[in-house]
């Protein structure tokens, strides 16, 4: 039927779409104009060939199967552009890709005689979709893809259908790993998630964010805040949840809470500081005032000492004259009993006066000291009997010492006097009944202590504490206790010089003394003596030595004429030969004249350019083993700084008795003889 066929072809060519017909053998019988135009292949080129033959380079996918099913089963098939893009290589008249859907249907009944393949141009729809899609994607990208928050779209089953790239950053999951998973599995707080998701799905959400705890892919925990809303698409409902990382906020909140707590602590501390500030200022002020008071006190003592020392020194010289002459007078009144008795009373008075002036000098730190290295423990043990007698039977005496007491360099006689003094004071304070403890310990006085007591040099000390449980003293009394002539004892019981002497002696010895006392509790006097690293010396008890005279040549240097005469008389009385000089220079002249002098007996302080110590040095240059004995009312640093003698220097304190002079002179002379014989060997 050519006419009909021509007409049919004309109809096919008029269709604005592709029409292909294949026969039972799948060979093309019809290929309309649209197909020719779109494929660039004329009907003549394709008729009689199968589609795979026409498009040998194309993967026609389900098309051949669809054709077979149409021919055998009479089944119709749709092959969409969406799933099978560009199945045929088709172009539009402007040579743009031509997007197309294909349907395959059987032709002829009941048995199919062929198969109709319709090609529909869906370019316009596809491009519109693509445009919409791009526009949507742009929006999507702007909002979802670039969001820092995780955005999940979850379906009605709770399955994740969409996850944005932030999920990788926040949770460690790629989108593909999340899609298809149950969203609830992401959360530690499962109930909270389900409530959020269901609430949104059912429209009953409060709209307030919920805090959720999620577990990242690496197992770590993250805190998220979720806002969920329903998203209806066509017939479906989805829930889109925006999950915001609130770890930073939580951390900040925690830090804020911590810093608030810190601030509160600081504020409390500040308040406390403010509260105690006044107290501490008071403490420091009191400390300062104490220090000032101590300084003032020590300055006062210093001034009183200087005054006292000056008086005592002159007084001593006078006493010396009186004493010496009284001794000499003894011989003159021999046989006159009454005169002898009166003389003895006068000598007793001199002796007491001498003691008094000696105490004054001691307080003034101007007494000549003869320090020895002693072990306080041994020293105290030797003293124990005497102390016991001094305090009497009503007082229990206990002595406690450190096992390894340090040595100290101190004048033993003065230390003995001091301790005796303190013990007697204690006894009186306890009214003869009570407990007296004497304790000796090693102690280090630190810089802090020294700050409070300006006179104290920080360092190691041997401390001797004399403690009673007697009446005690008020702070005012303690304040004045060291002042000379200050006494709380009844008239006639004390001179008020005891503690003054102890004070001066300790100070002069480079030590420190402190009184702690409370009324009704008792008193503790602590003496700190500097530690000496030298070995303990043997102390010679001069009083135990016999009184012997001699016939050696003695050179006496004394500026005070009456004292000089008295001394000369005393030496003569003891059998010595005597030369006399009125000052150091005169004495040196005598030495240098070649006189055979055995002993230089010199006052420490004399007027004139030549000093007594210089005299002794020069004399010894001339006579190497010359015995030298200094005598002084006070030292005033003449012999050595601090008034302490050098080890090889002997000193006799004024005023001295005839016996004391005799013993000391003998001692010095025999020492010199010993040195002479040693060097001769």
């Amino acid at each position: 039927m050519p006419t009909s066929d021509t007409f049919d072809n004309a109809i096919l060519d008029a269709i604005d779409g592709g029409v292909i017909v294949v026969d039972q053998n799948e060979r093309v019988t019809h290929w309309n104009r649209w197909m020719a135009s779109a494929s660039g292949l004329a009907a003549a080129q394709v008729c009689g060939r199968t589609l795979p033959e026409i498009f040998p380079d194309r993967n026609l996918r389900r098309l051949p199967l669809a054709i077979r099913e149409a021919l055998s089963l009479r089944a119709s098939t749709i092959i969409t552009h969406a799933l099978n893009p560009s199945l045929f290589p088709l172009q539009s008249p402007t040579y743009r890709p031509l997007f197309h859907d294909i349907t395959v249907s059987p032709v002829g009944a009941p048995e199919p005689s062929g198969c109709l393949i319709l090609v529909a141009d869906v370019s316009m729809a596809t491009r519109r979709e693509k445009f919409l899609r791009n526009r949507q994607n742009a929006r999507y990208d702007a909002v979802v893809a670039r969001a820092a928050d995780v955005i999940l779209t979850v379906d009605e089953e709770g399955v994740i259908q969409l996850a944005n790239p932030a999920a990788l950053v926040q949770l460690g999951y790629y989108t593909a790993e999340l899609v298809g998973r149950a969203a609830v599995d992401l959360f530690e707080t499962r109930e909270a998630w389900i409530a959020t998701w269901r609430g949104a799905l059912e429209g009953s959400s409060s709209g307030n964010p919920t805090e959720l705890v999620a577990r990242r892919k690496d197992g770590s925990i993250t805190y998220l805040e979720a806002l969920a809303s329903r998203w209806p698409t066509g017939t479906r409902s989805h829930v889109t949840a925006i999950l915001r990382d609130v770890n930073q906020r939580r951390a900040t909140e925690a830090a804020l809470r911590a810093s608030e707590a810190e601030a509160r602590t600081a504020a409390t501390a500040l308040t406390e500081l403010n509260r105690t500030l006044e107290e501490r200022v008071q403490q420091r002020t009191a400390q300062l005032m104490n220090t000032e008071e101590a300084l003032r006190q020590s300055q006062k003592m210093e001034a009183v000492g200087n005054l006292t020392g000056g008086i005592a020194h002159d007084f001593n010289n006078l006493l010396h004259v009186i004493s010496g002459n009284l001794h000499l007078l003894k011989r003159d009144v021999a046989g006159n009993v009454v005169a002898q008795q009166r003389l003895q009373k006068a000598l007793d008075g001199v002796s007491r006066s001498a003691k008094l002036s000696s105490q004054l000098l001691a307080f003034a730190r101007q007494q000549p000291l003869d320090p020895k290295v002693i072990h306080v423990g041994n020293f105290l043990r030797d003293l124990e009997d005497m102390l016991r007698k001094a305090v009497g039977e009503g007082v229990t005496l206990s002595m406690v010492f450190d096992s390894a007491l340090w040595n100290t360099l101190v004048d033993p006689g003065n230390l003995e006097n001091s301790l005796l003094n303190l013990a007697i004071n204690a006894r009186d304070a306890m009214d003869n009944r009570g407990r007296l403890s004497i304790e000796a310990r090693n102690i280090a006085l630190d810089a802090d202590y020294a700050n409070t007591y300006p006179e104290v040099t920080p360092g190691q000390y041997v401390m001797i504490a004399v403690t009673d449980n007697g009446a005690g003293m008020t702070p005012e009394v303690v304040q004045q206790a060291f002042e000379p002539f200050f006494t709380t004892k009844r008239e006639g019981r004390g001179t008020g010089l005891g503690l003054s002497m102890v004070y001066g002696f300790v100070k002069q010895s480079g030590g420190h003394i402190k009184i702690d006392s409370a009324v009704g509790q008792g008193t503790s006097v602590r003496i700190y003596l500097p530690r000496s690293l030298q070995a303990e010396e043997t102390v010679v008890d001069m009083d135990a030595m016999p009184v012997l005279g001699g016939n050696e040549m003695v050179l006496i240097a004394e500026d005070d004429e009456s004292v000089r005469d008295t001394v000369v008389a005393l030496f003569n009385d003891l059998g010595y030969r005597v030369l006399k000089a009125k000052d150091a220079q005169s004495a040196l002249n005598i030495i240098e004249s070649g006189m055979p002098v055995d002993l230089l007996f010199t006052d420490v302080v004399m007027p004139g350019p030549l000093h007594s110590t210089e005299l002794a040095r020069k004399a010894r240059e001339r006579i190497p083993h010359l015995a030298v004995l200094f005598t002084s009312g006070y030292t005033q640093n003449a012999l050595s700084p601090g008034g302490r003698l050098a080890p090889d220097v002997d000193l006799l304190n004024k005023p001295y008795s005839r016996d004391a002079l005799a013993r000391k002179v003998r001692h010095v002379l025999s020492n010199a003889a010993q040195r002479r014989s040693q060097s001769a060997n």
Partner: protein
Amino acid sequence: MAAQPSVTLGELELDALTELVNLGVSSAALSLREMVQEEVLLSVPSVSVVTRAEAIANLEQRNTSRLVGVHQTFEGDIRGRALLIFPEAQSLELVRAVVGGDLSLEDLMELEQEALAETGNVLLNGCLGTIANNLGRSLRISLPEVIHGNGSEFINLTPPPRADSCVLFIYINFAVRRRDIQGYLAMLLDLPSLIALKELLAEFIERATATTVVSPPHAD
């Protein structure tokens, strides 16, 4: 509520139908495999002829949510509608399984119509075509159409089926790309079609049990 269908298939006939459905599904699986370039496993755990009410009850029993279906009609000695039905939630999974790759939700939803149409098309063609072919009949099978609705809407599509029409109800399981998807294949048949089917099945059984081997038409 509804009584048994006025015409029912005998045990043997039902076995034969199950056999044919399995053949059809296997054929469809091959076609799907070609389409998705992945192994596709389809299995049919049960085939039954039920009333429309029972079919609706079956569809709505396990799925409260909405359904999506691929609809094709068939005409010939037997006529009716064939529906491949999934819960809507699973349909996207099916699309994802079919399309593969990491497509966004929007992409999937955009492809959903086409992908479901093609998938349903392949599956229904395979099933219907294979069954018809084995029964020695030819059915003209229409192009697919994707519809959304609930079970009742699917079973009672306009024009309203005749009261005596019944449903060949087939459970079908898909396993594609490690995803398991449960769906249903429903064939709505009116009474004459069911009678025709019953007769065709009887013929098929007779042919299959006959000593003389008669090659089915179009079988190679």
